[in-house]
């Protein structure tokens, strides 16, 4: 019984170990390698200094993705007065910053090189394709919305009005169109080339050469080169990025790296805890056993002690009794002896008396 139980425990441990080690390959890799993105992958460069806020990109996005018509038409630029974010039926939005010198910035999924959404998804519904786009598979999605929590750019949206089959939605970089050799809808629609599509490496070079050629026009930073480990979508700006609604405090650590630490603790806990806990159990068991033994020993010792005490007392009693007896005997003997000696003396005296009498009688006879 004991052996089979141990065997069972062992195989169970091995099974957990196997699953979790498989689990961790990725996180471990992320912690130890610097991933610079798939070589030759595509991206888009958004030069905000060229954007005029015409919303043509929004319109094109709406069309190629078969999204419902918005309440206000795309020609209505009054929409820009309010800062917007992506919604379930708006994969991209243009926002306007500044009052005198207006700056327009297009917002959509940045297609991270190591996406937070893909790292956070517990059913692998998001995939970073080697071509560049981060795509979503609704047939796997449970709808937990951890991707939306995880996204540092607040991009994925959710169909909150759908009761039974809500999807997470976001820009796909028009992955289906790319497969057909077409440009992303927004890039194709842009009348000012504020959006250009190409290999990310090439786009980076273009962006840097623009900064070099027009140092007065641009801030010396390509947003997306390193943010959150780098994104496929790159940005140029003439104003500090913080002032045009783009966070500068995101850091350069990719999302998977942020969680690789706790993930790598899993196999250690699975490996170490059974040993530690069984050890603690063994110690407490042994303590109990020793306590029990000590108790038994103590009992025995006490019993022994009691016996000895008893014997000693008996012995003492016996001695006492013997002593008393001897004393009594001695006393009796003494008494008897004394009596005897008294008698003897008395007898002697009597004898002496009788002798005297006899002597005097003899004397008397002689005198006669």
């Amino acid at each position, binding site marked *: 019984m004991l052996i089979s139980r141990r065997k069972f425990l062992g195989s169970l441990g091995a099974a957990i170990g196997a699953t979790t080690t498989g689990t961790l390959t990725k996180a471990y890799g992320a912690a130890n390698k610097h991933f610079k993105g798939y070589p030759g992958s595509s991206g888009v460069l958004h030069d905000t200094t060229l954007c005029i806020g015409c919303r043509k990109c929004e319109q094109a996005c709406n069309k190629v993705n078969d999204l419902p018509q918005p309440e206000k038409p795309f020609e209505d630029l009054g929409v820009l007065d309010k800062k917007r974010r992506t919604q379930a039926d708006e994969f991209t939005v243009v926002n306007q910053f500044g009052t005198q010198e207006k700056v327009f910035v297009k917002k959509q999924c940045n297609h991270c090189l190591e996406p937070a959404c893909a790292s956070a998804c517990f059913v692998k519904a998001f995939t970073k394709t080697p071509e560049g786009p981060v795509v979503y598979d609704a047939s796997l999605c449970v709808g937990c919305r951890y991707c939306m929590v995880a996204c540092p750019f607040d991009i994925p949206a959710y169909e909150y009005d*759908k009761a039974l089959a809500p999807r997470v939605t976001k820009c796909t970089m028009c992955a289906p169109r790319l497969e057909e050799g077409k440009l992303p809808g927004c890039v194709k629609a842009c009348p000012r080339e504020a959006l250009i599509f190409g290999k990310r490496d090439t786009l980076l070079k273009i962006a840097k050469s623009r900064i070099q050629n027009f140092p007065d026009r641009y801030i010396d930073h390509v947003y997306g080169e390193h943010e959150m480990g780098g994104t496929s979508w790159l940005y140029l700006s003439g104003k500090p990025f913080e002032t045009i609604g783009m966070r500068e405090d995101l850091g350069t650590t990719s999302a998977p790296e942020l969680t690789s630490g706790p993930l790598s603790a899993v196999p250690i806990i699975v490996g170490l805890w059974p040993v530690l806990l069984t050890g603690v159990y063994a110690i*407490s068991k042994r303590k109990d056993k020793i306590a029990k033994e000590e108790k038994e020993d103590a009992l025995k010792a006490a019993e022994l002690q009691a016996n000895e005490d008893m014997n000693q007392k008996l012995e003492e009693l016996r001695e006492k009794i013997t002593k008393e007896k001897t004393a009594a005997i001695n006393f009796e003997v003494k008494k008897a002896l004394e009596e005897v000696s008294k008698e003897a003396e008395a007898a002697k005296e009597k004898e002496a008396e009788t002798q005297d009498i006899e002597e005097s009688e003899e004397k008397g006879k002689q005198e006669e």
Partner: protein
Amino acid sequence: MDLDNQIPENKKFTVFNVVTGIILAGGLVLTVLRFTMGLGTVTNLDNTNPWGIWIGFDLLCGVALAAGGYVTSASCYIFGLKRFHLAVRPAILTAFLGYALVVLALHYDVGRPWRLPYPVFYSQGTSSLLFEVGLCVFLYLTVLLIEYSPAAMEWLGFKKLRNWVVKLTLLLTIFGVILSTLHQSSLGALFMIVPSKLHPLWYSSYLPVYFFISSMFAGMSMVIFEGSLAHRYLKYKMDETHLKESSGVAFGFAKAASLVMMGYFFIKIIGLSIGNNWHYLFTSWGLWFLLELIGFVLFPAILYAVGSREKNLVLVRLAAIWTVLGIMLNRLNISVVAFNWHLPSAQRYYPSFMEIATSVFIVTLGIVVYKFIVTRMPILHEHPDYKAH
């Protein structure tokens, strides 16, 4: 002296029955609303605030407060502290119901609840901490069901099966501690992916450690708290051992919780120092943080210490409630209050009435099921046929 199935006079319209009845009926209405109109109608969630109190309270608090199961069974069976034996069954039952309710609550929150088994059986997103949480909660719920099952089997009279399951106790306990360590800490680690959204006073690379350590005293406090409730309302189900020795459980856990909470307080200070976040303490967020840390960790830790030293049961029970509230405050701070702290208040999340009502409904459901089981099965007393553990 069979305490099973002894249910006192069956009045239908007691206060308890009426109130729970109303809540459960309301819950049914909310359920229908949720599954016909969607989350948008029932909740205040939006694209920027995708998680609300159904995650912050139902999931995070639910799991933390159900930690009594692993804490008590580990104390008794692994650490060999036999005086906690009488608390094991109630703790395992509450843990089992707690986790079951967490899973039930998730059915309301996620978009397609029938796909909840997907991460375990169909498409494993192994790079996600939520995957770890999902897998562990699934496995641990199974473990808890098996750990709880002997009580049901004693009630139903499945003697052979019950005796066989009881033999698994140690193995299940060890397995339960491993799984609890993993998912309790992973719930904290969930938020490690959002340094840009969670306030620096709460964001820490030690989040998983904080969640795991705090789950210990959360569990102990819940055991004490439930014990006091059971003493008040279910005394007639308790056998002599339970009546005589349950204050020993309270004092034991009070002492342990006090120590763990002091340790937790110090590792929180260490986290504060390592992040060099002292300057935030002088903002309004800092005051809120200090309220949580001093008012709801250090203060109840001292209450526990004094209560256990002076054998003052009232003080210990007060500390238990205080600690439970503190755990709720901490979990809600991380998932809701200090999450998206940088956004203007118009873009922040406040729970809707229907969200709160749904959470109340789920907690009430738990209480009703707990009462059903405790009044029928040998939880607060030993079954006469299976004495002498």
